[in-house]
């Protein structure tokens, strides 16, 4: 007796990861706003990569006269210690996007802003999934603690954390993680509350899967869309925060350039060299605006057909 066998059509395999990634990016190109945003972000990523191998002059060396306006040798001028502003501006992208300096002299790939966002994603996801999926006391306790964290004005938390732990890349990462986690947790919790009512969760529970398996294998992959958009926005906030901290003089440690502290240094010599505040300010603003536009475009396109 013939038994019907499920057939697998080799031509209709699942698309590979690369193809899916490309499909996701193609979605962004549907939106003009998203494309502009992506271009702005990619511009800075390229600048960061170039600065790894080449800058016009060494970024931390005082080679020129102080507070020069833009001229032939120093395209953007020099700062109050006679360092080339273009080189510093280019190198300033590295600490944000490409490298993290640890206290023992080691250098991690990937910048402070991105590690901070990854940290808040991990912490927020764990808390949010537990609150949303388990409910009851878990939910009450976790949300109460997060409410307390949200009640802190961010800047106060930054000030207190940095006063507590001193300056350093990892302290900034920690500060961004702690301030970002409540927002991520709330988002994940609301998504988990929705997803846990679906049938495939019932099925997994009936199979006897552990809560952690259900949370991370069944719920999390289905919540990734809004999470990715949120993460993009958060990278923007993180860059914003790093700039603000640098400006307040409590951010990433010197002497490596950081846009926020460049603005702060230039501000003190604003009468001597007014244009020096403009370049790093524009850099921060354009990168954050780019990330926001990119996230907006992504959200618009991913939710277009869900309405």
């Amino acid at each position, binding site marked *: 007796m013939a038994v019907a066998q499920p057939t697998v059509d080799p031509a209709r395999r699942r698309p590979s990861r690369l193809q899916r990634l490309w499909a996701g990016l193609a979605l962004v190109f549907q939106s003009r706003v998203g494309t502009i945003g992506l271009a702005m972000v990619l511009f800075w990523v390229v600048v960061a990569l170039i600065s790894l191998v080449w800058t016009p002059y060494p970024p931390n060396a005082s080679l020129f006269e102080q507070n020069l306006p833009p001229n032939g040798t120093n395209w953007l001028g020099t700062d109050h210690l006679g360092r080339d502003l273009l080189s510093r501006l280019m190198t300033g992208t590295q600490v944000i996007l490409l490298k993290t300096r640890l206290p023992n002299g080691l250098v991690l790939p990937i910048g402070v802003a991105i590690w901070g966002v990854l940290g808040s994603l991990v912490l927020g996801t764990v808390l949010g999934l537990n609150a949303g999926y388990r409910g009851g006391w878990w939910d009450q306790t976790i949300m109460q603690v997060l409410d307390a964290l949200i*009640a802190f004005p961010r800047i106060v938390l930054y000030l207190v954390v940095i006063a507590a732990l001193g300056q350093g890349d990892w302290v900034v990462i920690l500060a961004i993680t702690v301030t970002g986690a409540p927002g991520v947790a709330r988002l994940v919790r609301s998504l988990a509350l929705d997803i846990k009512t679906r049938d495939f969760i019932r099925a997994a529970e009936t199979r006897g899967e552990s809560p952690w398996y259900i949370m991370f294998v069944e719920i999390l992959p289905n919540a990734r869309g809004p999470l990715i958009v949120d993460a993009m926005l958060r990278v923007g906030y993180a860059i914003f925060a790093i700039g603000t901290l640098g400006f307040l003089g409590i951010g990433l440690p010197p002497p490596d350039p950081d846009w926020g502290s460049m603005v702060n240094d230039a501000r003190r010599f604003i009468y001597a060299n007014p244009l020096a505040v403009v370049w790093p300010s524009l850099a921060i603003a354009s990168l954050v605006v780019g990330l926001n536009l990119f996230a907006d475009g992504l959200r618009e396109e991913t939710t277009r057909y869900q309405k």
Partner: protein
Amino acid sequence: MARFILRSLLSTAVTMFLVSLALFLLVEVGSGDITVKILGVFSTPEQRASYRAQLGLDQPWYLRYLDWLVGNDWRAERLVGHPLVTVRNPQSGELEWWAQVAGEQLRWDMEEGQIYELVRQEDGSAMRRPAPETIWREGPEGEAVFWGVDEQNRAAMWIQGKPGVAFILTKAGMRQETDAPHRYIPLRKGLLRGDPGMSLMTGRPVMATLPTRIRNTFVLAGLAFMVVMPLALLFGIVAGVNEGRPLDRTISITSLALTATPEFVTGVFLILILGIWLRVLPPTTVFLSDSDIWNLKLLVLPVLTLTAVELGYVVRMTRASMVEVMNSPYIRTAILKGMPFRRVVFRHAVRNALMAPITVIMLHVNWLVGGIVVVEVVFGFPGLGSYIYDAAIFGDFNAVEAAAMLMVTIAVGTRLVGDVIYTLLNPRIRYS
């Protein structure tokens, strides 16, 4: 609904407790050895230890947390055995602690091993007389001890026949003093009773500085709020009604750019353009006297900066909410039945569309506080934000904790108000 409000009140109380504990512990870990900052790096370990004891830092953290929150005069009263009161000194205008003993207000001092009573006079000065021998009590280790109030507003314990040694910080440096007490409790009423303690930066009570700073910040934030609200709601509604048209695109992109630009960048740009190139406004906010807060010329740039930062956010909120309402079926019905478009917008759409932004603005106060800190630092504006910044940089924990708790209270309070307003405005919650 009463249940809902009660529930949020309770949750807020728990939140505030958690926040106070977290703040205290963080600052505790963070301030490190504050005595090094105050006494300098060349101070000896003995000097530091003595100063720590005088500040009451030698006690365990949970006692200090309690002191900070609800005060320690009730604890000291049991040791002293007399009620402790605060009296304003008519000469210096500052509050002083005295013990109320049989109709007189007393403090104590030791000289050459002999305790003297200082009796408070009406004009704030004190009359000195030797204390009777009967004041000594038996201490835990058999020695004769006496708990009294000393001249620096501390409850202090002297031991008979064993005068202590203390290092006193004076303007000229450290001075070694014999006849000192052995233990100290710096008297305070606690945050909940309106006394956050002494500022280590200024050596004066935090409450002597804080009210002026709070008023300055409220003037700044209030002015910004009055500028932002009408503008933002107007732009938001205009953009929302014209969804997708060039006008909407322009407003949306501009507001996105404004939100995505950090406060300090906006501030520095405004300083550069209006203060330095055009020279029409002063680039910093320096108050020569207290009444300068009403000098509008000084306030224009800080208010403009704060406006620019807030404007974008509220416009985006209002626009999103307006777009949602304009696409809803009841608006389509109103248009289809032939109602004038202007009337549809103003009578039917705006009312519903403004509900979300108003509550969101209440939740947004937290963000505003962050903006205020940066704006005040950029312009040197003497408000709450620059106060907490300076205090945090110095490690002045009493000042940081007081200012931070105040900010948290404002943030949590407005959120509570936002919740209640939302409940009142939304019939679906009101009647459930």
